[in-house]
């Protein structure tokens, strides 16, 4: 965390993108700290999967862990989409496990000088690309499978005729907002949680700097609260990954089955 001009600690500087190789000028491609943490996520996911894909007849603990995650996603898709959901397992699984690992990696409580955990999912660019991918799949599947009948998605069954234009507009807007809400939810949940943690961390630091009495009064409760918020954030990491996967599955269900 960098010192802001006011002498306080700026909780937003943890989200700053710093180039490692190349520059951040327009039209340039740079290798940044975001890229490093994405590669780290990829490496960890790869390690996790490779350890559990030995296909032993009697699965060990590791294989059981991997199989429970794949089984979880598989279950979610079959119960939400039906038998047609099988073919979306790879995509939803990729999204889920990438978000989960990126969220958890960003929460690592390590910090050396200049190096700190960077939460990849705390940038709307990254969550936005994932949301647009989900949305494109919905559009592509919907128009491929139902052609122009896909537009009946915007008119629920049994709508009285005078209400059709109004409902069509409302449903269209709610449909078009989906990628934004999908991206915004993950990005803000991560950003807000990390800002909260860093604000408490700055309370601890300035409390200790202010002397023993204030330190005891402010720093110790802040530290305890930070512990609980960290535990809560672990839960939020998993929930947000789950919600992203679940909502993607529901949107795909709309395209696959209309309603």
């Amino acid at each position: 965390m960098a010192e802001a001009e006011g002498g306080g600690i700026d909780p937003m500087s943890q989200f700053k993108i710093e180039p490692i190789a190349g520059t951040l000028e327009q039209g340039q491609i740079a290798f940044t700290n975001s890229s490093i943490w994405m590669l780290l996520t990829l490496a960890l996911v790869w390690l996790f999967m490779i350890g559990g894909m030995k296909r032993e007849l009697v699965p060990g603990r590791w294989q059981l862990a991997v199989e429970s995650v794949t089984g979880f996603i598989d279950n979610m898709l079959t119960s939400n989409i039906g038998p047609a959901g099988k073919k979306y397992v790879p995509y939803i699984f990729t999204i889920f496990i990438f978000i989960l690992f990126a969220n958890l990696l960003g929460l690592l409580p390590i910090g050396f000088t200049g190096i700190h955990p960077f939460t990849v999912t705390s940038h709307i660019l990254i969550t936005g690309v994932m949301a647009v991918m989900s949305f494109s799949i919905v559009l592509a599947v919907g128009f491929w499978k139902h052609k122009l009948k896909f537009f009946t998605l915007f008119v629920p069954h049994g709508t009285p005729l005078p209400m059709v234009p109004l409902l069509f507009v409302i449903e269209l807007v709610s449909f078009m907002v989906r990628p934004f809400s999908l991206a915004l939810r993950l990005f803000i949940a991560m950003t807000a949680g990390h800002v909260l943690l860093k604000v408490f961390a700055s309370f601890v630091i300035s409390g200790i700097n202010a002397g023993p009495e204030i330190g005891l009064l402010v720093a110790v409760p802040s530290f305890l609260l930070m512990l609980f918020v960290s535990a809560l954030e672990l839960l939020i990491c998993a929930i947000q990954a789950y919600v992203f996967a679940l909502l993607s599955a529901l949107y795909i269900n709309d395209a696959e089955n209309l309603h």
Partner: protein
Amino acid sequence: MEVEAARLIGAGLAAIGAGAAAAGVGYIWGSFLQGALRNPEAADGEQARLYIGFAVTELLGLIAAVIGFILLFG
């Protein structure tokens, strides 16, 4: 200086939205628990719906937080 003050007040007012969303999320989980305690066998089947409701409600609180961030740091 008045613009600065208005910005800070606005950011504080945006926090009301987060509190309102907290009430909504609490209502959702509370209702789920009530239903789940009355019919524990049906609880597992409704978990997906629980999380959808939670996500949709939580988003509104998060949007309030965004507005606060924009006012504070934007």
